[in-house]
């Protein structure tokens, strides 16, 4: 028998999509049954109380988590989100319900050994509930008590050789797409870059030294499978310079219907015969593809590397061989002044281990942002306040038309005295030429 009645939540056990309610209930039962005789370090009925609390929220239509709660592990400024329930008498199992952010490995590949070890820790010392994964990328262990935090950290580092992720005004846990590990589009090794960056900047990740949070995300190509342009302050997106490689025979195979367009991504509907002109040539945003019935040619100077043609015919077209990345800066969620995507600051940077060119850019930006950024001001907001050209100046990049979608529409240019000549003219001289 469940500790709390959850008639509303129970409605969410219906339907085909995996029911997290059933999953928690299962965990609650397992904990109650405790076949392995675990000496649970937090209340065994944590999941039951959690369900009860959620049922109450479903009734009240208001959250029952208190504001904030500063807890953590010694010497780190992040990695744990404190959380307390506002009805602890009724739901003592979730009186504390802190989150532990565990830094996920690049690409989120796991061995079952690693996951099982983690489950063991979390069975013993936490709620047994997780998010796989959090929006930033971490393994999110949901719900434990304050006393367990150092213990969990100790076990993670000593037994699992794994560290916490970020929270607070720190570097946050970086994330990347799976890139070269399994994707033919990858223009650089996102997983290697992610690993290299997270290792290099451990101090920034764990100890708050920034005006506000700072996120890295690494996309292997313009498809943006980890949404770096929307969700990271510093977005590194693979790109290429040389010509798109074309296998003319394979193009014909697409036209002939032997290969399915877009790798079969549209197979669920009859869209008619593949029409290379309508589906590729006419849609190309650079308007730079020609198909003469037997040969596809691309005017690469006008290609904007949108990858549509490549996505439609992955067996026929491949990204150019000279690859690297673009760096964009400043994405963030809407608070305060509205949402931002990252803006292009470095059109092209080589991206090979040890990724020095990229690290150089990051460090220059941090130095500047730590100097100029206001409290709780994301780097994109600092850039917006101080201008894109300021950032280019800081990182030593020449302004280029590629930096803008279009040039300014107002002629309100902030000229500097060095550019213009003497500003400090005596009014008397002027008055000699112009009577009052």
């Amino acid at each position: 028998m469940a500790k709390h009645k959850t008639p509303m939540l129970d409605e969410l056990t219906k339907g085909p999509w995996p029911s997290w309610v059933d999953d928690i209930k299962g965990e609650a039962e397992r904990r109650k049954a405790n076949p392995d005789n675990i000496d649970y370090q937090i209340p065994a009925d944590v999941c039951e109380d959690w369900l009860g609390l959620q049922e109450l929220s479903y009734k009240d239509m208001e959250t029952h988590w208190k504001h904030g709660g500063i807890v953590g592990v010694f010497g780190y400024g992040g990695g744990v989100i404190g959380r307390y329930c506002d009805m602890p008498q009724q739901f003592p199992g979730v009186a504390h319900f802190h989150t532990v952010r565990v830094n996920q490995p690049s690409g989120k590949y796991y061995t079952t050994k690693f996951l099982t070890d983690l489950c063991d820790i979390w069975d013993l010392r936490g709620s047994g509930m997780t998010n796989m994964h959090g929006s930033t990328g971490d393994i999110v262990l949901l719900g434990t008590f304050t006393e367990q935090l150092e213990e969990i950290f100790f076990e993670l580092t000593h037994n699992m050789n794994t560290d916490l992720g970020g929270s607070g005004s720190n570097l946050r846990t970086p994330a990347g797409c799976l890139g070269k590990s399994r994707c033919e589009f990858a223009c650089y090794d996102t997983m290697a870059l992610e690993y290299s960056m997270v290792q290099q900047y451990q101090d920034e990740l764990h100890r708050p030294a920034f005006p506000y949070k700072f996120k890295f995300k690494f996309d292997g190509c313009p498809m943006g499978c980890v949404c770096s342009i929307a969700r990271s302050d510093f977005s590194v997106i693979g790109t290429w310079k040389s010509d798109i490689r074309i296998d003319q025979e394979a193009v014909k195979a697409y036209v002939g219907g032997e290969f399915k367009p877009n790798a079969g991504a549209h197979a669920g509907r009859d869209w008619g015969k593949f029409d290379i002109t309508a589906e590729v040539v006419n849609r190309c945003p650079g308007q730079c593809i020609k198909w003469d019935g037997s040969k596809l040619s691309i005017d690469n100077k006008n290609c904007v590397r949108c990858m549509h043609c490549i996505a439609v015919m992955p067996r026929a077209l491949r990204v150019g061989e000279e690859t690297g990345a673009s760096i964009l800066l400043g994405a963030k969620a809407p608070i305060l002044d509205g949402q931002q995507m990252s803006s292009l600051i470095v059109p092209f940077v080589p991206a090979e281990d040890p990724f020095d060119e990229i690290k150089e850019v990051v460090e220059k930006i941090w130095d500047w942002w730590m100097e100029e950024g206001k409290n709780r001001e994301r780097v994109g907001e600092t850039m917006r306040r101080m201008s894109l050209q300021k950032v280019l100046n800081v990182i030593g990049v020449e302004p280029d038309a590629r930096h803008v979608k279009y040039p300014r529409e107002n002629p309100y240019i902030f000229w500097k005295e060095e550019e213009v000549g003497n500003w400090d003219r005596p009014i008397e001289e002027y008055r000699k030429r112009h009577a009052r």
Partner: protein
Amino acid sequence: MAFISSGYNPEKPMENRISDIGPRKYDEFLPPVIKKNYGQWLYHEILEPGVLMHKAESGDEVYSVRVGAARLMSVGLIREMCAIADKHCGGHLRFTTRNNVEFMVDSKAKVKPLMDDLKSRKFPGGSLKFPIGGTGASTPNMVHTQGWQHCHTPATDAAGPVKAVMDEVFEYFTSMKLPASVRLALACCLNMCGAVHCSDIAVVGIHRKPPLKDHAVLDQICEIPLAVAACPTAAIRPTKIEIDGKQRNTVAIKDERCMFCGNCYTMCAALPLADAEGDGCAIMVGGKVSNRLSMPKFSKVVVAYVPNEPPRWPSLTKVIKQILEAYAKDARKYERVGEWAERIGWEKFFEVTGLPFTHHLIDDFRDHAYYTWRQSTQFKW
């Protein structure tokens, strides 16, 4: 329960401490076929919904079976996934950037047994543990956040509405019949921890009542200047108030200037916004992050408010289905929701989706609003 020490000594926290080691290196975790062909992939094919085949230069192939997941998952469920991975996949698995799970095998022959196993597993209530799908022109897993499960600022729940929506659009998860992939997302408040601002169809929890003021404690638990500075519309000012004969520093809020962002509450726990009647969801549409065809786009608010209707949010799911179906019917192949809306014009978007256009949808925040108004006579009747 007896306290079990990990070895940590609270008296000497630095003793034997390991820190700043970062995550494990990824190459420890790669399945052999992935490790061997790293960086040498030639092309991929989607064999059926949820099943990808990647071909390497070496001729090797890796088959990935993608399954939906609630993201909120128990260690029990993780152990079950591990058992499957041990049985079929040599002890490896991965999670995608949208919280789907991928089981990889290195030959075609291994695919069917794996899939059969996955399909066979259900939760007691009948829902699938491992629905296969989410590839290609589908609705992959809905990115989301904490909601009433774990956060202090939500205006709606996260996992609940997501489950309701994914049930509603389930046929699109398991098939590839949409014009393009439609990324759904939910964030339970304007902090937008989900990628709501650039999603094809997104739900965002919104408050609609100005903060309550807990005057009795405000000056003890908040830094008043920080609370004042937190407000993007300058709705908050410091003030004094008498409580039980005692002068207290607190804040006053110009309610009509509030747009309910909750940033003041983030900075000051004495200013809660949550309210059953006020809270609910806005629906945003047409964002994308890929650079394919068109540049990345922000999502636009197309429904200003849908009330919270736990446990199954029927109005919300209905509107989402409505949008999805209008899109499925009208858009061109490869066309993302935002590209479609722009091509037909937003005025037609409202017509074909049947959504009412209301004054709330006109931008009136900050200077940029102007640029969203129509400076043209081009529009459709």
